[in-house]
């Protein structure tokens, strides 16, 4: 365990580097994933907004059409009533004095007043109405009845009798032996306004009558019941609209000015989105029905759904991200375990043979100046340890030997269990004298090791033999270097074990057997 830890420490920086290298692609993947999620959410919002906008426009158009139809039907009923009244009165063929005394006494129906204009322009009406005819030049409007299918309608004006807005319908009639005259019927504007009232979205729907030429508007329905019937001008309303939508408003108004049947506008006022639709009113020349609705009222359900989808998407993204990270971490851990298994000897924790060869090749390729030392080590009489004390004791000896090697050479070299009881150590930047000192220390420590897990009390002292070779002095390849060290080991063993020696290339006599022969068993 100790050896394993040391070996981990030896390779700690490279593991960190490896971890960093393995984390980078993960971060890249997460980044790409988040970008895709973000793009998906933006697309989703865009689609939802487009859907909501389309939904609002369609719904507002529908409401506007409905309101316009109702108002048109209402005025059609009024004009029809005026025509019927005209037909009935014309059929009597009386003088207008007589007819006026009849109609002024009976006040049935929803109209405010009834009167006549004879072929000489004389008006049969109350004093208050006569003043209004003069004030609003209603005779000119009456004369329009001759041009427009015997019907003309005035713009709304305030009645002296009621103080409310009214409008007057003029229609052609005959009297007194076929003379041409006109019947006029004055209705309160609220008769039409009431038609505009709708239970659906009542509190949010604003309905105006709008004169295209002047942009004047009369409120017919709205959230504030007291604002119904009030005059305003769309130029004032336009100023409330956010500057970004001013051009859209101008385009919308241009359509109205050009006499188009319908137009739709979407704009914001103080952050609130509105859809506004106009529809041509048949009954009043140049006037339009305008319906305005806040998007929040129309698309409340859709917007709630959009909000829920967004929250759901966010949660889903986070959950996926968390699962992804957890899964990745697990993968990394498994990979590390597998890598450890492929690099390290599972018993001793030092490198296995394959990993050592790869590592040593890499180390030797980088060493230039100071050279390296390769040691081939072998536990003496290890077979006997297994035979006498059992394999468990043998494993303990191997682990203990590897631990001592790691303790002495772990900081300066690579250690490997090369097979059985054979170990290889590759060090760099250390002289052979220092190596000798370390080997001597190792010899001392090994000789002090006890085989404690045995009931065998017989005398057995552990020792090892080692052979060393120098790179590049003895060999320039790992294979040759190992062969040199192995040869040196062979000589040590041949000379009685429990010692170490250096490969003798014949250039120096220093590289001979060192150490001391093991005690006799």
């Amino acid at each position, binding site marked *: 365990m100790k050896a394993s830890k040391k070996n981990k420490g030896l390779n700690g920086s490279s593991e960190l580097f490896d971890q960093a290298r393995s984390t980078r692609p993960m971060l890249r993947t997460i980044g790409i994933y988040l970008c895709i999620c973000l793009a998906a959410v933006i697309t989703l919002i865009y689609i939802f907004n487009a859907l909501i906008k389309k939904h609002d426009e369609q719904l507002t158009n529908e409401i506007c059409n409905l309101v316009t139809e109702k108002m048109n039907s209402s005025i059609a009923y009024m004009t029809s009533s005026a025509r019927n009244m005209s037909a009935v009165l014309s059929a009597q063929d009386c003088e207008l004095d007589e007819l006026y005394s009849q109609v002024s006494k009976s006040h049935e129906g929803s109209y405010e007043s009834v009167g006549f204009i004879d072929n000489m322009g004389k008006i049969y009406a109350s004093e208050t109405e006569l003043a209004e005819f003069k004030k609003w030049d209603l005779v000119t409007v009456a004369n329009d009845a001759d041009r427009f299918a015997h019907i003309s309608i005035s713009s709304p004006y305030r009645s002296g009798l009621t103080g409310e807005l009214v409008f007057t319908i003029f229609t052609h009639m005959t009297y007194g032996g076929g003379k041409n005259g006109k019947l006029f019927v004055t209705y309160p504007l609220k008769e039409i306004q009431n038609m505009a009232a709708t239970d659906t979205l009542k509190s949010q729907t604003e309905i105006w009558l709008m004169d295209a030429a002047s942009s004047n508007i009369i409120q017919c329905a709205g959230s504030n019941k*007291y604002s119904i019937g009030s005059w305003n001008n769309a130029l004032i309303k336009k100023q409330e609209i956010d500057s970004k939508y001013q051009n859209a408003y101008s385009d919308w108004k241009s359509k109205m000015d050009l006499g188009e049947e319908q137009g739709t506008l979407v704009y914001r006022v103080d952050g609130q989105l509105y859809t506004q639709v106009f529809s041509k009113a048949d009954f009043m020349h140049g006037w339009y029905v305008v319906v305005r609705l806040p998007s929040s009222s129309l698309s409340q359900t859709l917007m709630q759904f959009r909000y829920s989808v967004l929250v759901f998407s966010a949660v889903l993204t986070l959950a996926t991200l968390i699962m992804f990270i957890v899964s990745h971490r697990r993968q990394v851990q498994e990979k590390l375990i597998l890598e450890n298994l492929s690099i390290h000897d599972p018993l001793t924790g030092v490198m296995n043979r394959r990993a050592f060869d790869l590592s040593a090749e890499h180390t030797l390729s980088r060493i230039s100046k100071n050279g390296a030392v390769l040691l081939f080590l072998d536990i003496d009489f290890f077979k006997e340890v297994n035979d006498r004390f059992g394999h468990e004791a043998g494993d303990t000896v191997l682990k203990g030997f590897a631990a001592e090697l790691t303790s002495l050479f772990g900081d300066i070299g690579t250690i490997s269990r090369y097979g059985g009881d054979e170990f290889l150590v590759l060090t760099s930047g250390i002289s052979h004298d220092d190596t000798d000192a370390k080997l001597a220390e190792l010899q001392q420590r090994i000789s002090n090791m006890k085989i404690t897990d045995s009931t065998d009390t017989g005398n057995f002292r552990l020792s090892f033999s080692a052979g060393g070779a120098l790179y590049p002095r003895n060999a320039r390849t790992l294979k040759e270097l190992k062969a040199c060290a192995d040869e040196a080991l062979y000589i040590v063993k041949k000379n009685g074990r429990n010692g170490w020696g250096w490969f003798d290339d014949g250039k120096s006599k220093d590289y001979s057997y060192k150490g001391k022969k093991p005690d006799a068993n």
Partner: protein
Amino acid sequence: MNKRAASLLCSAVIVLTACTSDKAPEMTAEIKPAPPFQELNMNVEGRNNIYLIVKNLESSYWQVIIKGARDAGDLYDTNIYYSGSYIETDWEGQARLMQEAVDAGADAIILAPDDSVMLSEKIGEVYDAGIPTILIDTTANTEKYDICYMTDNLMAGRIAAAEMINRLEDLGHTNEDHLQIGIEIGAVTSQTISERLAGFIMYWSDNSPENWELVTDIKCNEGIAEKSAVVAQELLDEYPNIRGLFGTNNSSTVGLATAVKDNGRTDIAIVGFDYSDEIAELITSDEYSAATVLQQQYLMTKLGVEAANILIDGGTLERKFVDTGVIAVNHDNINDKEVQEVLDNN
């Protein structure tokens, strides 16, 4: 990892929630509160007590209204009490005064509503309580009042537009000239102003030369005297082709007259409302071209007090709306007898 995930989730929820949060409330200017009622004439026990509530206690226009009420009080042996707001947007102050009048035992209330929409409910309340309710100057969007004496502002706006065309023609402009007309209003919620504006634009769109264009950027002074000249100056600066200026009420007209005089713009015609010193100076001047539409406000309260007494005494009224009429005063007719009579009561 769990903590991190939770914090990320919370952040996402906070961001989503923040997207739907409301805007912070805006600051509003402090309004000088309406004062308690004062006696307008000698208080005599046993006479009808009529309470008058005006729009602007500090305006010369409303002083004429108060004068009309005092004279009518003396004429019809009636005790008159009066108060009002200091700014023509303080409808809440007027609602409070109405309640104070009711609590004081008013036999009738004569009101010039600051806001025909917002005050409708309170007017209805007083009417339902059986107290004769007479409106002057401005109507309300309710049927619950007895009678309204006022200028038909839609018609007044039309008369103002006709006068503007006359003034521009007097300045020598022809149908071929390309020119602009600027508009300044006193409030966006006032029914009086909205109707004048609607009448002006209605007449203008039907009768003005095509090249005489209304500036769609209508300036609003919010009933603040100091602001009226500032927004008028903005109109002059932003639209150099302006040759006509229309003010929908007294404060707007004062602002326009001040700006025109300060800039020495004798090439600009002004048409406004009411007879302030500023517009009077331009009308009487030989250099400037100005006109103002005068209301018969003296008549409004005189008739209002008369109607209140009829109603208190159990009488009924045939009409519900009486247009007291207007007259356009300019350099040419200012010395006419009819105009002088109106001016004497202004």
